[in-house]
């Protein structure tokens, strides 16, 4: 029992990270019908920004070692940096090609992804680097063997807080209303006097900031970052977004948590039914295929009549 509870905690933890990243995919898709393949790399950029900031504050502000203030600065700082990078990508890569077909934008996204990855490999090398510890990592025993570590609690608390904040922005603020209007129909929104370019840029900033938070949180939990860390994680978050129903915000969260739990359970109990633990990545993609076959609109997505 304690092993099962532990696996559930582990799975929800991984899932919370996927959910944070999936939100960015789903918001951008909701507004532009674009699958932003560079989003996984923004997650990586966020982690690297956090890494740089952690060393910067250790050197300049004397905040070496674990501290709440340091963690907050690194988290918020990384989110800001990633938001700026996300905005720049939108402005200089996607906006110029937005007027062409969606395929053009999609291929541009793949290009941007490769560009970011390889710029980082060229600059920092492909080897992983250790992320400085920003909080004292204590482990709390729940019952039996089941335990939860401080970094796991942090992931839950921060991701829930950010998701609530996102919900508030989208449903209670003017800019959120504008985002929803743009996602319904970009051209009508423009006619209503909404500055659609600004809203699109804001959406990219928001999604990128969430991805950066995921990057810093992951780096606390498994303390290594490398320029290619966003590829697999980004793909799985994309699967999570599709599973939940791409374009649907609660769906992205649900999808992320489901993928995280599913792959952890494969590691934990797959051997009992003849699935080796190394199939964990395959499981996410098997889920993707099943979803596309059985319920293409995703778990929470609404079926839309395809416009021809």
């Amino acid at each position, binding site marked *: 029992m304690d092993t099962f509870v532990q696996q559930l905690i582990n799975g929800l933890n991984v899932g919370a990270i996927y959910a944070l990243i999936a939100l960015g995919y789903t918001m951008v898709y909701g507004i532009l019908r674009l699958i932003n393949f560079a989003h996984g790399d923004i997650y990586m950029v966020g982690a690297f920004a956090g890494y740089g900031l952690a060393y910067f504050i250790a050197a300049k502000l004397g905040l070496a070692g674990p501290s709440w203030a340091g963690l907050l600065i690194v988290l918020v700082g990384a989110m800001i940096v990633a938001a700026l990078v996300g905005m720049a990508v939108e402005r200089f890569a996607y906006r110029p090609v937005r007027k062409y077909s969606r395929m053009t934008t999609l291929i541009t996204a793949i290009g941007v992804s490769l560009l970011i990855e390889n710029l980082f490999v060229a600059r920092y090398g492909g080897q992983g680097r250790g992320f400085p510890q920003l909080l004292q990592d204590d482990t709390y025993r729940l019952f039996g063997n089941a335990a939860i570590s401080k970094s796991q609690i942090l992931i839950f608390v921060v991701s829930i807080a950010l998701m609530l904040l996102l919900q508030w922005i989208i449903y209670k603020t003017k800019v959120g209303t504008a985002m929803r209007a743009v996602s319904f129909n970009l051209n009508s929104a423009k006619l209503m006097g909404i500055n659609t370019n600004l809203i699109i840029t804001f959406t990219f900033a928001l999604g990128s900031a969430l991805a950066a938070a995921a990057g810093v949180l992951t780096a606390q939990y498994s*303390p290594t970052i490398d320029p290619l860390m966003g590829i697999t994680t980004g793909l799985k978050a994309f699967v999570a977004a599709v599973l939940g129903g791409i374009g649907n915000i609660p769906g992205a969260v649900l999808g992320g948590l489901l993928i995280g739990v599913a792959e952890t359970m494969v590691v934990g109990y797959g051997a009992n039914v003849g699935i080796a633990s190394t199939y964990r990545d395959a499981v996410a993609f098997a889920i993707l295929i099943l979803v596309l076959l059985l319920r293409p609109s995703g778990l929470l997505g609404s079926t839309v009549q395809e416009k021809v």
Partner: protein
Amino acid sequence: MRRTLIALGLTAALVAASGCTSRSTNNCTDPGGVIKVGVYGDLTGQTSSFGQSTRNGSQMAADEINAAGGINGRQVQLILEDDQGEPGKAATVVGKLVNQDQVRALIGEVASSNSIAAAPTAQEAKVPMISPSSTNPKVTQIGDYIFRVCFIDPFQGEVMAKFAANTLKAKRAAILFDSNSDYSKGLIQFFKSSFVDKLSGTVVAEQAYAQRDRDFTGQLTQIRSANPDVIYVPGYYQEVGVIAKQAKQLGIKAPLLGGDGWDSPQLWDLGGEALNGSFISNHYSVDDPSPVIQDFVKRYKAKYNGTAPDALAALAYDAMMVLADAIKRANGTECAALRDAIAQTKDFKGITGVISLNADRNAVKPAVVLELRDKRFVYKETINPDSGPGTTASPAASTSPANTNASPTANSSPAGNTSGGNTSAANKAAPNTMRNANAGNMNKP
């Protein structure tokens, strides 16, 4: 116009292709002049500290050889290639080194999977390849031009099994291995056969992960529920650092055991203090007080800004020196002559021990067990192979240009090692394999 362009393009392609084929054979006869040696490894990928150490070690050896007047008056030139730690790219860069650069010999790789991928190219072109540190047995089985200067995994796996059973008194072992790596898969197999069949222990859990995984809590949770005495994790440092950290987060107290794949300055950066109390098997200890090793460490630090040489750097240095010694004896680099000269390497006094190559082109050497403590690999004990290298050859048979130092075989009696009792069964090896035994007295906690 368009047709003309296509025709032009085709012609250009043909010219390029024919240009390639005309160069694509490596001539077996020695061209004379500067001796080109190809060094390939992972310089920018996931395990880049492996390649960088190999580069540094071999470069230092080459520089020392050249400063001492070269090999029979000929200078050595190293040509470096980066394979980013990927088997496919390893084969490609070796093809480039062999066909385009026309190297006379190769040094590399570290990771066994990459050596296995690249070796057939070297074998086909009859270019001798010395792997400094690939320990999987399959590497040298690829052909008679493939050598190595390190021990192999049947021994390395056995070393850790013996250490776990005899020194740590472990009965229950769990295994967590890297399913992408021939090195890791080989090691667990040999660990199991030794720990279970010979030392009557049990393996209570066996879990696998994939390279680039970042979350190991699923596997570790299952391992924790099996309640093992030790956990054998023969992976590479990149994943191991994270595994140690997450094991600690889950409250796992059993010590982690590993192999030489852990040896990297990067390991501490990733695992931090979670690594304390783990043990690894390795090729040499930087703390070894023997003058040869300490002198090597000093020269290496002076050359590379104070970085201490890890085992991979020392092995790369030895690989280059063994090669130089063989070229000297073969008096040139004609393929077959050089191959035979390398194969005849006997009692070569290297940094990592006395190197004699056996009929399978592997070195038979002792291993050291090191404890990880406060960002240091602290010497624990030496475990010797059951069958030592041939003892009949005279030690004077080997001469090396750079090994003018005092003999590295600063032996102490096996009893000098306080843990000798545990390893006495293995200590019947040839005396020249006991070089590290004396280190135990200095560094024992």
